[in-house]
């Protein structure tokens, strides 16, 4: 009896120390769940989810403060991926935050109108607009996420939304019609 008690207690002690040691030694920096959620978000940094960027939204989801259906650019694909990751029910996109566009968009500066005020440059979350004060600005199409955050600050309304040229030019092989249900016609 006593031997058993001593054995168990000492085992518990050894494992406790081991666990404590590993917890310190192999401490995980940051929250992996936030990283995983962030990896699924489209990184437009548009703020339509009401958070100032994708990572803050990921943090809010991880803390249970935000729902998974607040990301219009991600649309259904992102919602399904998040529901898979977090083990929660997928639900339709919350319309309050915006609607999902199938064709990705970018912005373009109308260079004959631009006055070079740099306000859009300051608004761009991914540094995709270049130009100096009183110089014409231009958008790096490759880097533009289509968040449209540069549009409200523009004092002369010279920024337009266009379908992303590289995406729009490619032909999209359609999904076939699907089976005819009901009686076999042949």
């Amino acid at each position: 009896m006593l031997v058993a008690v001593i054995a168990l207690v000492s085992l518990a002690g050894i494992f406790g120390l081991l666990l404590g040691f590993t917890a310190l030694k192999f401490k995980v920096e940051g929250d992996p769940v936030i990283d995983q959620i962030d990896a699924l978000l489209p990184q437009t940094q548009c703020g339509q989810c009401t958070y100032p960027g994708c990572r803050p939204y990921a943090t809010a989801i991880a803390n249970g403060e935000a729902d998974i259906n607040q990301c219009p650019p991600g649309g259904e694909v992102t919602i399904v991926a998040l529901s898979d990751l977090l083990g929660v029910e997928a639900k339709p996109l919350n319309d309050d935050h915006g609607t999902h566009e199938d064709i990705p968009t970018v912005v373009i500066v109308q260079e004959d109108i631009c006055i070079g005020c740099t306000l859009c440059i300051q608004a761009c979350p991914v540094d995709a607009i270049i130009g100096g004060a009183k110089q014409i600005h231009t958008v790096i199409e490759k880097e533009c996420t289509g968040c449209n955050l540069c549009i409200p600050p523009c004092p002369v309304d010279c920024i337009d939304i266009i379908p992303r040229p590289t995406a729009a030019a490619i032909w999209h092989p359609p999904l076939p019609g699907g089976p005819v249900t009901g009686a076999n016609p042949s």
Partner: protein
Amino acid sequence: MSSSNQKITPFHGGLHLDGHKQVSTQTPIASIPVPQYLHIPVPHNSEVTATVGEHVLRGQALTTSSNSMTPAIHASSSGTVRAIEMHAVVNRSGQLLDCISIETDGNDKSIEPLAALKPSADNKQECLDRLRECGIVGLGGAGFPTAIKVATDKSIDTLIINAVECEPYITCDDMLMQEQASRVINGAETLASIVSAKEVLIGIEDNKPEAIKAMQAAASNAERGKIVIVPTIYPSGGEKQLIQLLTGKEVPSGGLPADLGVVCVNTATATASYDALHQGLALTERIITVTGAGVKKPGNYLTRLGTPISKLLDFAETDHKVYQQLRMGGPLMGIPVKDTSSPVVKITNCILAEAAQPQHAEQPCIRCGDCVRVCPAKLLPQQLYWFTRATEFEKAEDHGLFDCIECGCCDYVCPSNIPLVDYYRHAKFEANNIKSERIRSDRARIRFEQREQRLERKAEEKAALRAAKLKKLKEREEAKAAQQEGTQDNKQDEIAAALARVKAKKEKTND
């Protein structure tokens, strides 16, 4: 060397199909006259160097490209460039493409051919540049630039010449071998020298006895070149399938034949490569099979690239009321022709007029597994189909979606008439799209984080600067205060001294 005792390793699945090949092999190859207008599609990533109104000669390059993937295109007869504008072409999307339209002058004058180039181990780069310059691409149907295929720096043991031509109706390679076997062998020799291949295997399906005879006769004089007869099973002409048949080795998923020390090139491509190196000629014509329902003179026609398909059909005396649909290519992998004004291009091996076939609507999949039995890539077509319908493209990719060669065997056997390959094309596009969007979003994340860091750093720097300035100001004020104090002390001293002097004076006068 022309024996055919090579061991054949069969591949999984495949179909035994009616060849319908004898229809178009009864007459020798005929030349189609140069049409009045040629329409030559401009490839992607190319810049048009020709200008409207310019007079061009046959073999003159019309585009340049900084991308080594893109071979040049050439005027296929002499004439005047009339327009560079959107024109109908044969593609699955039905989108128009930029085409260079040339009004031919009937003289058919050519540019001076380039100097002959004898390939050896020393001038590989020169040969590759020549292949690109002359616009040589895979003429079997895929159109992959030959220069890139043979540019591999892996050591190549075997060059395989793909003379299988497994798809029904198509006979252009068959006729090329029957009539110009020595050119094919020369082409094989040329390419073998470029890649320094030790052996050359020429795979021909056993339904082409005439071509086999001609090739064996031609190969008997050649240094390298062994004719291997393969059984007639569709798709034995698929690159991976032919490599397995001849070498017993399987090209790994996501790998290239060069990984196995093999390079596989189509017959007509080999001939065109010979012309490019030894004759200095650009690719401006090819042999095209015209056959099918309503074609009164089926056969093979040497056609200038850019010739409208309608001219080809007219020359073969096609009754337009008989056929229901035209295809560019064979019945399984061919692309439907929507507009007969579309030009023939480098990959046009066949124009097939298809008779009306009973149309069956797509029915639900019953999981019979017939598609699994015929799939030459050893995939699970029905599984890929379900993943595609469920928009689970990443799972489809895990199940080998990108190993699908789109041969159409599964479509052919499906009892529910499901257009399976159309589903896979859609899935491949979506899977690639997801990947490229992920790359884009990863880049956006990094840029966002870097911007945040920069803003933070700037704010810190500003704060530090402000703190430093405040400190300086404070120090200066303190110093000023200290100085002021110091001057006051001095004044008081002076006053005290003056007072003392006055006092002393007073005392003196009092004395």
